[in-house]
């Protein structure tokens, strides 16, 4: 068992009673179709949940405010979420906009939980005053984070008056599988989820709707379990406080 591209492709080919590939790149016909479907299923899993733990962009820093740090520049509002990214394809897959934190590495060590503010609200409430202030190079400590309309940048409000570190959680885009030895990023334990999704497409290809539906059910169940286990393993409690008030 392995979770590389060739192994997964061949597992599906065997299921379909088709000849295995020696290298994925040289596959033809149904082999090519299976190889394509593996990537399709892989991306489906990626797209199904925003913040897959296995897509973390980096190891979180200490203090634990995020796995990505962007230093601010005095007087600059907008920053690329992924520094140096050339286009949307190389940007992060997703960002947790509720978890932006500003940290002043120097005294007075300000630590602000930056509230996400929509562009509309920011325009309505803050843009004019901040623009006025900016004309006189009058900046302040950011309190809010806003998302640019292209989704590639975050903006700070107010415009920073010094160098701060902006911490947030970002999740990278996975690379589609191409070489035989390319591996999927999630644990091998969840390979059946990918196989089920691929099977869903392949049985559609073969006009076998019944088998396709079974594969879809298997995929959905597998994905739920995968998401629960990988993204929310912590215990979840629900408190009922009514008794508190009822108690004498």
């Amino acid at each position, binding site marked *: 068992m392995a979770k590389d591209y060739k192994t997964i492709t061949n597992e599906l*080919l065997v299921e*379909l*009673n*088709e*000849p295995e*590939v020696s290298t994925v790149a040289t*596959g*033809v*016909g*149904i*082999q090519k179709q299976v190889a394509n479907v593996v990537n399709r299923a892989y991306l489906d899993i990626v797209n199904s949940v925003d913040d897959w733990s296995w897509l973390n962009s980096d190891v979180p820093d200490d203090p634990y405010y995020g796995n990505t740090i962007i230093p601010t520049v005095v007087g600059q509002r907008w920053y690329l979420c992924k520094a140096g990214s050339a286009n949307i394809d190389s940007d992060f897959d997703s960002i947790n906009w509720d978890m932006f934190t500003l940290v002043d590495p120097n005294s007075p060590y300000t630590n602000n939980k930056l509230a996400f503010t929509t562009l509309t609200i920011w325009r309505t409430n803050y843009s004019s005053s901040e623009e006025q202030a900016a004309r006189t190079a009058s900046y302040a400590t950011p309190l809010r984070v806003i998302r640019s309309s292209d989704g590639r940048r975050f903006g700070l409000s107010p415009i920073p008056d010094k160098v701060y570190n902006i911490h947030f959680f970002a999740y990278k885009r996975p690379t589609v599988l191409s070489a035989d030895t390319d591996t999927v990023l999630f644990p091998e334990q969840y390979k059946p989820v990918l196989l089920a999704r691929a099977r869903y497409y392949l049985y559609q*290809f*073969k*006009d*076998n709707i019944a088998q396709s539906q079974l594969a879809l059910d298997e995929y959905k169940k597998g994905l739920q379990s995968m998401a629960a286990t990988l993204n929310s393993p912590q215990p979840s409690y629900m408190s009922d406080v009514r008794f508190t008030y009822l108690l004498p």
Partner: protein
Amino acid sequence: MPTQGASITVAGGLDLVSSSHALFRTPGAATILENFESSTTGGYRRINGYTKWGAGASAIPSGSALDSITGIVSYANGVVTCQGSNIYWSSDGITWLQINKDTYVTKTGTVAVTAGSAIVTGTGTAFTTEFAVNDRIQINSINYRVLSITSDTVLTLDYNVVAAVSGVAVKKSGIVAGSLSAATTISRANQSNNQFTTFESDGAYGSLYITDGTNKIAEFQITVSGAVNTFYFEELERSAPTNPKICGIFSERLVVAGQSASTSTVSYSDRLEPYNFTGTGAGEIDVGDIIVGIKVFRNSLIIFCKNSLFELTSLDSTPILKSITKNIGCVNGNTIQEIGGDLIFLAPDGLRTVAGTARIDDIEIGSISRKILPLINTLLSNIAQYTISSIVIRERSQYRLFYHQSGQSKSGQKGIIGTFKFDENGVPAFEWSETKGMELKFCTSDLNNSNEEVKFGANETGYIYQIDTGNNFDTSNINAKFQTPDMDYGDNGLRKSLYGVKANIKPEGTQPDLQMRIRYDFESTDVPQPGAVDVGTLSATSLYGSAVYGTGTYGAVTLPSKRMIVTGSGFSNNFRFFSDDTNAAYAVNGLFVSFIAGGRR
């Protein structure tokens, strides 16, 4: 989707002309059928091989492989071989006797003959004890037959003497094997493409006549007395055509044709006297076209010419020459054979039968080899490079034509096999296949005195081979391939995933190396093509009473059904069975294919 099945009965033989779409409906045919034969009992059978006659002790007739063999024929429970400038006979392939020898031996006394008379007068002769009626007798170097014997000193020859002599020795033909080597050789220089015919005269084996287009007609006979063979050899005189290429027996006569001076003339001997072309019953007929072959068919002699065919009858009275066609000829006389109640020959448009040609003249549908037209066209367009030979294997109703190319490797030597069968509708037809690696330049088949069919062949190695024997091509592997046409199981628009194939294969011994290969969608490179799968070890049935303990396979079934797990999918597919070994033969009789249909993409 449920698994479906398709049963394919293997039949029809090689079909190289039908469109791929038409072949969807005849999945039992073959698009490749090399070193297989269409079995008379159904299916395609891997052919037998050929082995040196005499096995490990086999010998080259002349002793030298540099002497070209120019013809062979089975005779007297042995084989007559023309090689170099000589003719040889052997009964075992090990010991060869040169038979083109002066077999006349001087007898007691001297004789005198008179011109214009057939009476021989002897002095001190013992005609009654040393001669018998119809014996070959030689006086003054001229050969006669003894017509009658009056006394020890008087006998009558079968025709009048031309020049008178007296006091000359009298000789009689016939010497034993031990005397052959010392006898004087009658050279047969520059022999080529020898033709043979046997006249069932006296003696156990009749007389064999040999022509080669260069030398006189040779007459050879072996008689047996007390298990001792006596050999007779001479060249025909008495106005016999000097260098005919072709010979045959028809209407109790020796018929020859193809003399260099008269290529369109058929000459025939006197009735019951194949050595006599001067009698009242002898004669000649000019057909006006170059004769390439003659063959007796029912009560007629069919004369195959370059551009026409004739039928000759009624030699006992006034000969009747009737034209069969003047639009179709025979390309090579060595292709003519009798099979299936008809004569088969190679015409410029393929193999034909005389009856078919007589019925429809020069129309192409008269060709019986339409299904292998590409093969025939290749053969015809390069025919000058080939030495053609053919045989009939009676027990299998089979016609085999070999086209040998000098200088070509053994694996490149080819041939065609046609099996005469009746299809499911009772219509007679030939089913074709190919041979590859069967290197035969000359071949012959006949029934021996025990009524067993014997088949011999020769090539440029100098050895004589037993054809249709063993499981190798003179020690080389038999590389056999049978490939079905692409089959679509009734719907070429639907993708089929194949899961299993059951093959009905009848083995004739142990065969562990047979393999099967599937190719999808006309062997498209855009479709994944699976590797070959082993069919598994096949073992012949062991029957109580004939099986040998320790050799036979316990529990083998008569017709094993071998199941193979296969992979792949496509809209159509073909199957190839192939082996390249020296194992036992087998016959592929049919297939059962399990598949799941699904998807029109």
